[in-house]
């Protein structure tokens, strides 16, 4: 399945997902509270050092921050101009450290394991009226729908291309949504036909 997971056997891979998520929350909070540049530099380097430990390459680490390079540059420039070099470095490094830390969890945990952890955690919310079985059905259905919708979108765009409308959001989204809702009605019947108790 589509997943950002990077296979491996490191201690981080084997760590329980709930522990990893807990550690991420603590780490992110500490990073946000801390105001000192030297500590931020140390933290960023420490997080970066965890990458090889988790059998990940520095190239993978860079790939995590690359989509945000533009905003790093922008923030750095604005901060430098208004507040000086120290603050500019601090802000951008903190952001990079935060993203690298969070990505570490994502890269070393299978989505399916994360989903299992989430559904288990949902049991705690039962008294609030949350039904974990329904949530896991919704998750599976969404994962089932994404490739089907992507397929429908490709088909609709091809059809609209013939009319020169493939970049018109409305000419793509409207027929796509109508087909999607028809599919949803059928699939809801199929779920009921197959003995599902809602």
């Amino acid at each position, binding site marked *: 399945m589509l997943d950002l997971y990077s296979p491996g056997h490191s201690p981080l891979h084997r760590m329980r997902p709930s522990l990893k998520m807990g550690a991420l929350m603590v780490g992110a909070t500490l990073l946000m509270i801390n105001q000192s540049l030297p500590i931020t530099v140390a933290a960023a380097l420490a997080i970066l050092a965890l990458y090889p430990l988790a059998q990940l390459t520095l190239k993978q680490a860079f790939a995590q921050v690359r989509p945000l390079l533009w905003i790093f540059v922008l923030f750095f420039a604005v901060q430098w101009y208004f507040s000086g070099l120290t603050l500019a470095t601090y802000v951008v490094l903190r952001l990079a450290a935060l993203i690298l830390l969070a990505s570490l969890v994502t890269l070393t945990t299978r989505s399916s394991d994360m989903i299992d952890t989430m559904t288990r955690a949902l049991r705690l919310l039962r008294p609030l009226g949350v039904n974990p079985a329904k949530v896991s059905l919704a*998750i599976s259905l*969404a994962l089932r729908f994404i490739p089907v919708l992507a397929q429908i979108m490709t088909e609709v765009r091809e059809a609209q291309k013939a009319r020169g409308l493939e970049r018109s959001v409305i000419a793509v989204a409207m027929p796509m949504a109508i087909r999607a809702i028809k599919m949803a009605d059928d699939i809801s019947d199929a779920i009921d036909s197959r003995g599902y108790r*809602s």
Partner: protein
Amino acid sequence: MDTALKQGFATKDIVYIALFAALTAALGLMPPIHFAGAALPPITAQSLGVMLAGAVLGSKRGGLALLLFIALVAVGLPLLSGGRGGFGVLVGTSGGFLLAWPFCAALIGWLIERDSDASAVKTGIYVAIGGIALMYAAGIPWMAFIGKLGLTKSLTIMVAYIPGDLVKVVLATIIARGLRRAFPTL
């Protein structure tokens, strides 16, 4: 609505929630519109999913659809435009916008549910309140905080996105009204 709450969600409600979460993901595959060179992130069709979920499904199902979407992003599926996902994006500069999505959809749905005979213009205003006003109100302070930018500077950056977001409001309104006409029992 009262009985729906007591009985919990029917199969169809669960399917629609999953569908609009998936639709938001699929809209991320529409080619983004680049502007201002590469200085600013491109406009994507994805927040259209937020507006549609609220306007079509209503507050409860629409909000849950986006909550499901964000949860799937959080667990590491690359469902955001450009194939991004994972916790990293949620703690990044646009995290505030993303985490606000469920609330934006719920607010749009709530406003429209209260006024089901609303004209197209009024519907558009409701979509804009949830899809622009609330989204910016959550996203801009987050961006200001994370980037230590201050509100004014963050606001200046976001001005570039308002025209694109207004276009999305119009699109969402047209599509939502069309869908409600095509499927009155939705």
